[in-house]
């Protein structure tokens, strides 16, 4: 919180002292009231809802793909060896780099930004699930096996709950990525509504930098809020996995 306040103070100072021309970098004292005004604006509200919704849908789809895939890759070495090269090839491709390709081939509807966000969000969840499976205590597995739990059921009764905190961390990382990709795609696609598109249109008007910056600040606040919510959920649901500093 102190870091955030400091950042805004620095920004205000830079803008006021003329370090950067305040025509481009409007100070927070102008941007924040603009944001408040925009939040009451119907057009802006729809853009906000569209962006948040697209981000969440992408996150849900990515989780639905990445968790089972991570379980598979994490528990069947043959499959893992077979597809890891492909995964390592695809993963470093930034989804922002395929936005033009996606816009041309898929079009500029919401499916494009959702699809690209799914692509970006899948990797952290997939890798966290997969590596969490590597970390499972073999004694947990043996215990379950000794009580007659079959190999496939070990996956759901032991592996998944034990990996769950890492999976949620993956989802948290994926959320920020997903939001970023959705907004970036909106910059490029004229036909869709969303925060990115709103900022783009605002930038084309005269003297609208305050609105562009307000949208940017809001994107940051969304990420911050969502991350805090997931961290809270993590502490609530997975208290067992938190470091306990040797306390017993």
């Amino acid at each position, binding site marked *: 919180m102190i870091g955030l306040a400091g950042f805004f103070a620095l920004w205000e100072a830079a803008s006021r002292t003329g370090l950067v021309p305040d025509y481009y970098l409007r100070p927070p004292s102008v941007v924040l009231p603009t944001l408040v005004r925009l939040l009451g604006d119907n057009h802006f509200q729809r853009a906000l809802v569209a962006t948040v919704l697209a981000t969440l849908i992408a996150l849900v789809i990515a989780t639905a793909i990445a968790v089972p895939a991570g379980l598979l890759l994490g528990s069947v070495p043959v499959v893992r060896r077979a597809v890891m090269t492909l995964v390592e090839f695809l993963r470093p491709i930034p989804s922002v780099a395929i936005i033009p390709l996606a816009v041309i081939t898929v079009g500029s509807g919401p499916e494009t930004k959702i699809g690209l966000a799914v692509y970006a969000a899948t990797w952290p969840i997939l890798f966290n699930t997969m590596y969490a499976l590597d970390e499972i205590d073999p004694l947990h597995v043996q215990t379950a096996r000794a*009580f007659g739990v079959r190999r496939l059921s070990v996956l759901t009764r032991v592996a998944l709950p034990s990996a769950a905190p890492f999976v949620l961390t993956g989802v948290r990382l994926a959320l920020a990525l997903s939001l970023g990709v959705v907004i970036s795609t909106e910059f490029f696609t004229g036909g869709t509504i969303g925060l990115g598109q709103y900022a783009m249109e605002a930038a084309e008007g005269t003297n609208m930098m305050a609105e562009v910056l307000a949208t940017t600040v809001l994107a940051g606040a969304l990420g911050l809020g969502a991350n805090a919510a997931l961290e809270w959920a993590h502490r609530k649901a997975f208290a067992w996995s938190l470091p306990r500093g040797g306390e017993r």
Partner: protein
Amino acid sequence: MRMLEVSDLGHTYQGKDGAHTAIDGLGFSVEAGELVCVVGPSGCGKSTLLRTIAGLVRPTSGRVMLHGTPVDGVPSDLAVVFQDYSRSLFPWMSVTRNVEFPLRKLSRRKRAARAAEALSAVGLGKAGRKYPWQLSGGMQQRVAIARALAYRPALLLMDEPFASVDAQTRFELEDLLLRVRREQDTTILLVTHDIDESVYLGDRVLVLSKSPATVVADLDVPLGPVRDQIGTRASGEFVDLRARVAGMLQGNTPVGAR
């Protein structure tokens, strides 16, 4: 009735630096209701033996019969208590959920009843809502014992169950085991490296050789069903037996093998 029969059992691991024979030509049997202790030097293959009986490791030779049926895969009426309670209990489940874990085939109500009964048998009737990591080591091992008892196994296997708790707690848990076993008439095979513990707990003590493990001696422990940490350990029979076991473990000529 013969609960367990192990005949000519052998297991060889294929490692990077060649094969390692952990156990070789092992044979013994356990009658229903007996508590048999297996004692042997560290690294002699005791854990391998136990995991083979539990169906977790497939033997390379010989066979294991559990009440007349050859063990192939994990038997359904067998429970294991491992040494490392902190890694064998599931940290994401409450104590009650841990104890209910093996009972998934029962109705919810029966599961709860069994878990409550098992937890009170080990003196943890009020800890059900806690999580394993909120309990002391000794209490965690009680939970692991309760989980095994709730399953009502025909055979309970214990792999160095008290090796990771302090001496005072070990005495308490040993007596707890003797009491529970008198009450529930469980057949138990307990592996330990602690000579005193094997004599104090066992109806019989099986002494294993260094790796590859074979049975060096099979001794009866005529100390009766009710034992006492101070009186029993001071008795002449106890002292005599522990000396014989210690002698055999140090590689002296086996005596009293039957």
